[in-house]
Structures are given as structure tokens and as C-alpha cells.
């Protein structure tokens, strides 16, 4: 599978990264080099193999449905544009 300029623009859009038109061909080349490298996996027969979901055999831990942490909204918004403990964003509704 190889990536063309159109795919690079689509992926950039999905990734929410603005890519300048002049950088598209170079990025396509770099992505293709990485994808060519991972193509080696086609040599591996994975018939009947389950994907690895956990590297350590453990049961999913469940915790009690109680509040143990939190209530520090001021600390969460402290490093960004905020007002009354809310994040501030540009107007999205006219």
C-alpha cells in the first residue's frame, strides 16, 4: 500500500495538523518509507493467532464507584486560557 498526495492531505486533516502544500510530496515520501518498512509483516502467518490485548495475564481491575480524587478544576485549567474554571475557545456558534 502506498500513500499519494491526496491521502497525505486527508490524513493530515484527520490528524488535525495543517500541512503546507509544498510539504505534501516530502511527507508522502517519508510515510511511504515507513509503510514500506512495516510491510515486512506480510511475511508472517498469523492465521489463528489472537491479537495481544494484555502483556501480563491479569483480570481487569474494577474499582468501587466512588469519588476518590478530583475537585481541582482550578488546577486543571491553570495553565491555559480559562474563565471561571472553564476552558476558553474561539466562538463556535454564530
Amino acid at each position, binding site marked *: 500500500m502506498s500513500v499519494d498526495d491526496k491521502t497525505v492531505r486527508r490524513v493530515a486533516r484527520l*490528524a488535525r495538523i*495543517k500541512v503546507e502544500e509544498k510539504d505534501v510530496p516530502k511527507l508522502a515520501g517519508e*510515510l511511504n518509507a515507513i509503510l514500506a*518498512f512495516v510491510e515486512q509483516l506480510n511475511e508472517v502467518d498469523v492465521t489463528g493467532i489472537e491479537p495481544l490485548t494484555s502483556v501480563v495475564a491479569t483480570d481487569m481491575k474494577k474499582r468501587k464507584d466512588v469519588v476518590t480524587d478530583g475537585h481541582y478544576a482550578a488546577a486543571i485549567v491553570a495553565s491555559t*486560557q480559562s474563565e471561571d474554571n472553564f476552558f476558553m475557545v474561539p466562538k463556535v456558534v454564530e
Partner: protein
Amino acid sequence: MSLTNFTIAEARAKLKAREFSALELTDAYLAAIEKAKALNAYVATTPDQARAMAKASDAKLASGTGGALEGIPLGIKDLFATKGVHTQACSHILDGFKPGYESTVTQNLWNAGAVMLGKLNMDEFAMGSSNETSYYGGVVNPWRRKNSNASLVPGGSSGGSATAVSAHLCAAATATDTGGSIRQPAAFTGTVGIKPTYGRVSRWGTIAFASSLDQAGPIARDVRDAAIMLQAMASVDEKDTTSVDLPVPDYEKALGRPLKGLRVGIPKEYRPDGLSSEINALWDQGAQWLKEQGAAIVEISLPHTKYALPAYYIVAPAEASSNLARYDGVRYGLRVPGDDLIDTYEKTRAAGFGREVQRRVMVGTYVLSAGYYDAYYVKAQKVRTLIKRDFDEAWAKCDVVLTPATPSPAFAPGEITDPVEMYLNDIFTVTVNMAGLPGIAVPAGLSELGLPLGLQLIGKPFDEETLFQTAFAIEQAAGKFKASQWW
């Protein structure tokens, strides 16, 4: 002799005996950091906080109530959240970010009495093998080639941690390892680095790169200090459901245990064509040392080794693209205003992420996009099962695996520009992350050009004790290595 020359174990005894104070020790490190600006190891120092913590340690030491790391000055990788202090993963996108909370790992260290000197340089979001992707510039390796003044990279992504430990700019440092980011820089700087079993250390408050691979561990000057550090860092944590509820053993007790009866596996797949003769010789020497101390050397096979790196370059970018979605210009750090909200996201991420991070986020986005998920991500996760199975079968024949840590010694900045060639630096380390196993890098000798070379030991899940025992045996035979000071 400067107080910075003492290992943690030595300083611990001398602090307890009140030969010097924690404040004196901290001041000695702060002075050393001041003189070592050329190495660019620290991106932020916290001298006031360090001195306040040291004074508190002195009070505890005076009353005999000190913890395991009481008064020991540490450097912290910029990936760990430290309350009110620079925590930016060395990325432009986290400009000015100071969290209102503390990571579990660093909290464990402060609870044990350690002192924070500051935050250490690293590859941006831990993506890199040379520390060249940091927004704060590269880190300089204290080691240089024989008869050369040219700078070398310290490896990555924990390049600041490795340089700071190697150059005695902290007693030890925290680091993280997703594909080799503790072990490769440790090998490049003549230090000891251990990536514990996935789940041994809480990931809470550590900025996420690839969540199924990330694990924190220490970089230290010798095996004993690495054991002391990991003991303090490891814990089960309610805030991280992947942290495992097993008691943390007394790792120091494993040092010096006889090797008699220990079976050391040598995987034939780790000897690729073109592996340099000096790495081959180092590896043989390491096996010989262990044999002389009573271990049995057995050949093993890990047939899916060559697929670990390509599988990693699907899994890691895929998980990174998801984890890094939160850096949108709204909740953290940098914001570049756009015409509308989407435009703000796109402009912020274009300006805030460096080239390597953008590349990986885009690869990850592509392999997770509609129609490709099964062909890439699911396939790579199946290959991971096979890699893990290789090790499960090997444990029938051996107790620990010995390999080189890296395919070469440290290289020069700018020497490797091709992303895929850079990825090959992790060829010996990445399988360990894919299988979730513990791995330790220990210095074993010097290259022909006088640069440190490391060996890697891989253990069974949660058998860090055997790694410390075996690494200590290598250290006893190989000795320790220190760069001569030029900075």
C-alpha cells in the same frame, strides 16, 4: 573530592552518619549543573525547591526518621508531571504547562525522601533515539571519541537523564522506555538503565506516548543504585489499572547472589548480518564472564525477533496518534489562533509538534483509519502475540536472556537523518516492550574509539531480581566507566 562523586548507596550511608548534610549534597549538585550548561541536560532547574526539600531531609536524618532515599538529589525526565514545575515533554505544544498534580512515580520518590533538582531534556514526547527531536535542542554526551572534541548524542529518548547521570549532575534520574528509551541512552553513556515489567510502575501522571508499551524506570550510575531507585519508584496504584498488585521485592538483596545454576539464553537471531565485530566480541565476553561465575550458557531461538521493530512502528504511532489528540490548543500550553476552532486545532498542532512527532501522528492516523485497522494495527498486535510466545517458549530453556543493548556506540548529531535508519537503533531493545518483559542495560566495555558499550539482560515477567543479580555479576567483571570531565 566533590560530594557529587558518591553513588546513592555511598551518599545514603554518609548522610545517615551525618558526614555531610543533604543541603551540602544538594548545593554540590546545583553547582555542578551550573557548570555543565554545555551538556544541555536540564530544561528547568528548581534550586529553591531542592534546598527546601534538602533542609526537610536534614531534619528527618537528624531525628533518624529518613526514608530510603532521604536527601538524595534526583533529576526528573520532563515527561513526569511535577506539581507547579515545568512539565512539557520537551515539546513546543506544552509551552508554559505546569500541572496542578504530581505523578505517582515522583510522589513515591518524594515520599522516600528524595530531592528534586529539576527537569531533564528528552526527545519530544519521547519520540526519538538521539535526543535531537527536543524543542530545547540536543543533549551532549559526556563521552567523546578518543582524540576528538566532536559532540556525540547521548541516545534517546531519555538523553537528558543519561547525560545527567553519567556526568554526575544528579545522583540518579527517572526515565521512561517505550521501545528502548531507557536502555539505549544508558548504553551510550556508560550508565545502568532498567525498564521494568509492564505494570510494575504506575503510569499515572506520566505523559503518555504509547500506553501499551510505556513503562518508567531509573537510569543510575551502577546496578546497586538502579535497584535502590526502582524499589522506590515501583508501586501498585489505584489510579493506573494496568499497575500490577504484586509486592515490590528488596531488589538490593539480589546483588551478589551466586550465579550457579542460572541458565543464560543467547538468542541466535540477535546476531544479524553486519553486526560489528566489537559488539559481537563484547557479547561473547559477557557470556564468558557469566560462565566463569557459574552460569550455564544455552543457545535459544526467538524466531519473530526481526518483526518486532516493524510491528512496533505500527503499534506505537497508532497509540501515539490517539494519546496526542488531547493537544489541541485548548486544554494545554500553546494556542495558535485560527479562523475557527478546527483551524485553531490544525494551526496549533502544526506549530506545536516537531517533524518527528507529526510524522508519527500521521502514520498512526493512517494505520487506524477506516479500512486499514485490521491490516495494520490488528496484524501488528497478532505479531506481538507471536513475539511473546517466543519468549514463553525460551523460558523453558533459560532464566535470563543476554543480548547486546545497541547495534553501535553513540553517534554524532546529524549523522542519522533517515527516520527508518534511526528506528534501527532500537532493534535489540524493542522486543522487550512488545512482550512487556523487563530489560536492563549494563555497561560492559569500551569501543575501539573509547566509547561505552552496553549489554542487555531480558527477564521473565516480574523477575527484575534476576536481572539485578546477573547485571551485578557483569558489572563486577567489567568494572564501571566514567567520562573524563571536559565541560
